[in-house]
């Protein structure tokens, strides 16, 4: 089997992935699997998905040659895939449109979602408004406090935001609570999962909806730069923007794929969110993958300056690509991400999301080791408007 042929029919990427959920959800996941299989082979469904991406999201998103940043970093040419220019300001909308169209096809009028930074919550609330669906968003109580503007955005869009106060009060607990809602309302409700993780078929379908990013790059890079990049860099929370840009490049064997995890205060500090760099395989949230866990198999709390990367697991396909050696995964610490955030603001006039700043920071490390005519393509997964309060606070400024 080729690397791109995964997952197998039961959702496995080698030892990773699968369906690890309570019995009550098994039938719903099977229904979703069957319906998605029909949808992706239905030209009318795919045409509508593409229409929405073009006219509602504004795709294709441009690829941009960041000349001044490249000069400053002193080495390879850096190109940015501008997912920050999408409607709602991040790549998340590609996936929520796909899933909302599936929900509509399946006759479900109530959608639920989990969110960390609030970007997926906003993207879910947006499509729920667009298609006339009821939307409930679960969000860790701690994230509700640190992402107040996004909470208000979701409310403006008509969604109900439910703060989750169990466990560590962050993204993983929001995911637990969304699963609990789904178990309870499984017949009426569609769960719009926000990243390429969860039980099969989610990692596969989220990847498929996000692959538009990489497919566009395959076409845009030769047009703009005359060839494909030497390396593709993306940040990895659950892994959806990364798998979206990586996957179409997997068969291009001389393109390095580099995923950037949240190094937080540094791997040695233990305060990070880098399961691929410093975790071990386990089962959480319906799938097997690398996790951050203690010696008893309890999930440990994560830390990152960016709420969107603050997750103890990672999508199963990334674990698989790591073990297969097709992709590399590295941590970037909070301070390195912040420096890259400011670099992009000052050199290019682009305020990036803190998540995406991790990918830029890795380009900063890699570029000087490459030649001037080599190319790094960075997935700029989102814009940083949501993060200005966080950045101001870290700089000692009160807005």
């Amino acid at each position, binding site marked *: 089997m080729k690397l791109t042929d995964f997952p197998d029919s039961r959702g496995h990427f080698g030892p990773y992935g699968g369906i690890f959920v*309570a019995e009550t959800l098994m039938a719903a996941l099977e229904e979703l699997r069957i319906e998605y299989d029909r949808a992706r082979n239905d030209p009318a469904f795919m045409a509508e998905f593409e229409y929405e991406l073009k006219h509602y999201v504004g795709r294709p998103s441009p690829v941009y040659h960041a000349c001044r940043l490249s000069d400053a970093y002193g080495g390879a040419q850096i190109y940015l895939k501008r997912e920050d220019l999408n409607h709602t300001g991040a790549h998340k909308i590609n996936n929520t449109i796909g899933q909302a169209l599936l929900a509509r096809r399946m006759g479900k009028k109530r959608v639920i979602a989990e969110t960390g930074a609030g970007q997926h919550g906003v993207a879910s609330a947006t499509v729920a408004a667009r298609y006339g669906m009821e939307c409930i968003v679960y969000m860790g109580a701690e994230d509700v406090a640190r992402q107040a503007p996004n909470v208000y955005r979701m409310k403006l869009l008509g969604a109900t935001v439910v703060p989750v106060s169990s466990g560590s009060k962050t993204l993983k607990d929001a995911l*637990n609570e969304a699963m*609990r809602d789904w178990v309870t309302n499984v017949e009426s409700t569609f769960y719009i999962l926000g990243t390429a993780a969860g039980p099969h078929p989610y990692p596969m379908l989220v990847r498929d909806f996000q692959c538009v990013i990489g497919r566009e790059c395959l076409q845009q890079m030769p047009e703009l730069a005359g060839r494909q990049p030497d390396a593709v860099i993306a940040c990895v929370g659950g892994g959806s923007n990364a798998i979206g840009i990586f996957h179409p490049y997997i068969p291009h064997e001389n393109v390095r794929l580099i995923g950037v995890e949240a190094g937080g205060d540094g791997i040695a500090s233990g305060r990070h969110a880098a399961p691929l760099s410093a975790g071990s395989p386990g089962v959480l*949230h319906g799938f097997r993958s690398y996790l951050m866990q203690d010696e008893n*198999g*309890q999930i440990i709390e994560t830390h990152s300056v960016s709420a969107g990367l603050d997750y103890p697991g990672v999508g199963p396909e990334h674990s698989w690509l790591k073990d297969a050696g097709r992709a590399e995964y590295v941590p970037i610490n909070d301070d390195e991400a912040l420096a890259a955030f400011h670099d992009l603001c000052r050199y290019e006039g682009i305020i990036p999301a803190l998540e995406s700043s991790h990918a830029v920071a890795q380009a900063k490390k890699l570029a000087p080791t490459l030649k001037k005519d080599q190319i790094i393509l960075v997935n700029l997964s989102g814009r940083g408007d949501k993060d200005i309060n966080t950045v101001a606070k870290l700089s000692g400024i009160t807005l």
Partner: protein
Amino acid sequence: MSRIGPTFAALKAQNKKALIPFITAGDPGRGMTVPLMHALVEAGVDLIELGVPFSDPMADGPVIQRASERALANKVGLKDVLAMVAEFRKSNDATPVVLMGYANPVERMGYAQFAAAAKAAGVDGVLTVDIPPEESTGVADVFKAAGLDPIFLLSPTTPESRVAQVAQAAGGFVYYVSLKGVTGSASLDTDEVSRKVAMVRHHCGLPVGVGFGIRDAASAEAVARIADAVVVGSRIVNEIETAPEGEAVNRVKMLVQDLRRGVDAASR
């Protein structure tokens, strides 16, 4: 061999139904679990389900979530739970014990290593909520080889076509979850449960336990008329949570005696 089969056989011979309580190991304190287990036996239970605390109890409602959090605050992990069962076995070699929890603590220990340790401690069955039969290849077999019964869930959403497949992987008994939802959810519809249990029996020769939504003697009696075993979790855990300091064992005993009367009323 596991104690579960013989226990159900003996009950059947007496025309009785099983009462199965659930408590979380390590809640409210490390030293409380073994005394609570003995109290449950004195109050007349037939089998004990012991919850293994987990940081992310996805299938549990607030009551059992909080019990899990209390147990984790007491630093209780899977190894400690096995030690508690071994301690319980020093003075009780008859009552079957089923561990109920999530995959990751077991995965972390290693399935074969866990199975051997659990058997040695005196565990009889294992229910890992988030390992359905589809993912249990190599797990259920390892458990069975060690003499542990793999317990599986069936739910209102389980299609009839799947019941035989679940039964095939299962051992000891099957656990029918009476409603769509997490543990501790509201009421159950006995007519619906009755229809479903009849369907399950058609495809599965194992005893059928029913749980979720059983809160008092009356609901225990209603379910005992339908099923081979009545499982009560959140109601008992709630009693432990709300009992005044030092009163948990007594409160649980009183509650379980009442549930026992309900279960027995069904066989009269």
